[in-house]
């Protein structure tokens, strides 16, 4: 943020850096409907879990609850055949996700061969929740032609340890970012605001990490306390904290590309999208508004 911008209010920061248009994305992980807005195709962009309802981490904020709302690659089925079935039913894209391994990644290697076919033969868009990646997975994702890779950027070792139950550090997260960036993949990082039991801890460091790479889209997820998890009764972060972080993110300048983040999407704890003013646009299930299970 420049000195001049530091004195601006969050809306002024937005207007200083972005056109006077706001896009709203309805996450594909849930069906959404209001009296003002009904999705024209609720199955347009669907999340698919490659691990069913299984996750080796069972993080404190999710405990596999998010996997319940995903389609599963069933026994005797592969990702391509599932995608073909969904294509017949009107889906135009997939968010390929799943539970995590003990090392913080989604076991995607066995499914990569299908991604290219899904794109070329079915004409579907494929965005991937990859979690932390190995060099092999980063290379495979690049070869697959995935339209985007999403991962949560954790900026505090305590959060990795306490919330994710991972014996890793922030440097390991940064390494994954570097591996994906080096392969030229379109990275769509997520920062979960309030992930450390409702309070801010590593969010600003996560933002600093992201600005070290060529990133055009950043997804900010406001913690949604989920029933049946250790965080069920954690209050989400305050709205003013969230607004301040948005201002910081919108002002962030990528040191890698010398350009500002072009787009900042948000997924909030609010269950119902507000009525959009005339200068806003609604979109459904783009995948950009989807939140990650495994990568958190």
């Amino acid at each position, binding site marked *: 943020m420049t000195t001049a911008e530091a004195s601006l209010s969050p809306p002024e920061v937005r207007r200083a850096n972005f056109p006077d248009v706001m896009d709203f994305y309805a996450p594909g992980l849930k069906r959404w409907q209001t009296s003002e807005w009904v999705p024209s195709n609720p199955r347009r962009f669907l999340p698919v879990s490659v691990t069913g309802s299984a996750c080796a981490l069972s993080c404190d904020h999710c405990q596999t609850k998010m996997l319940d709302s995903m389609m599963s690659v069933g026994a005797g089925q592969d990702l391509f055949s599932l995608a073909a079935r969904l294509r017949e039913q009107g889906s135009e894209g997939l968010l390929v996700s799943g539970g995590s391994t003990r090392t913080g990644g989604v076991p995607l290697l066995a499914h990569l061969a299908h991604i290219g076919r899904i794109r070329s033969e079915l004409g579907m868009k494929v965005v991937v929740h990859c979690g932390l990646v190995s060099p092999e997975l980063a290379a495979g994702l690049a070869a697959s032609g995935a339209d985007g890779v999403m991962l949560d950027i954790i900026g505090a070792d305590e959060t990795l340890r306490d919330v994710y139950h991972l014996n890793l550090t922030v440097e390991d997260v940064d390494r994954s970012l570097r591996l994906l960036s080096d392969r030229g993949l379109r990275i769509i990082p997520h920062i979960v605001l309030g992930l450390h039991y409702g309070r801010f801890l590593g969010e600003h460091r996560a933002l600093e990490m992201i600005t070290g790479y060529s990133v055009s889209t950043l997804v900010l997820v406001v913690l949604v306390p989920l*029933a*049946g998890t250790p965080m069920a009764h954690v209050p989400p972060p305050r709205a003013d904290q969230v607004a301040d972080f948005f201002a910081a993110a919108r002002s962030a300048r990528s040191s890698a590309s010398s350009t500002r983040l072009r787009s900042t999407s948000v997924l909030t704890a609010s269950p119902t999208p507000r009525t959009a003013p005339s200068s806003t646009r609604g979109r459904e299930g783009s995948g950009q508004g989807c939140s990650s299970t495994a990568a958190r």
Partner: protein
Amino acid sequence: MERTELVIVSGFALALDRRYHAETHMWVLLTEPDRVRIGMDPLGIETSGTLAQLSFDPVGSELTAGRPFGQLEAAKFVGPLVSPVSGTVLAVNDAAAVDAGLTERDPYGSGWLIEASLSDATGELQGLLENAAEITTWFTAKLADYRRMGVIAQ
């Protein structure tokens, strides 16, 4: 109230002592000649995922068939509770509003949603499924459809 008679259809309990609206997955139980109790059927609950929050329009509100009478927030769905009939809200289930899990645990009993008077005691019920055979056939077909589409587990 009499004990609810249930049949099991592919693992889902189905009460045959009431009527169903095929599209909204709401059941309608006639409690008096012009008064009904309304709730969600188990398939509607299953496709919504774990229920987190229920809210209802206040007592005295006008009900219109096909229009919302409240809101539902669940793991897989956030949106309106749609009324299967027209009339006036006479009571809401405060216990379900406090604990949405009640509707999940006992959808035909203590997890009911609202009670209402009917604007037309006979006409409002005509579009609902009433016969046990047609209810079972509809439920079975819907279940198969949702499983085929992957909306619920195989």
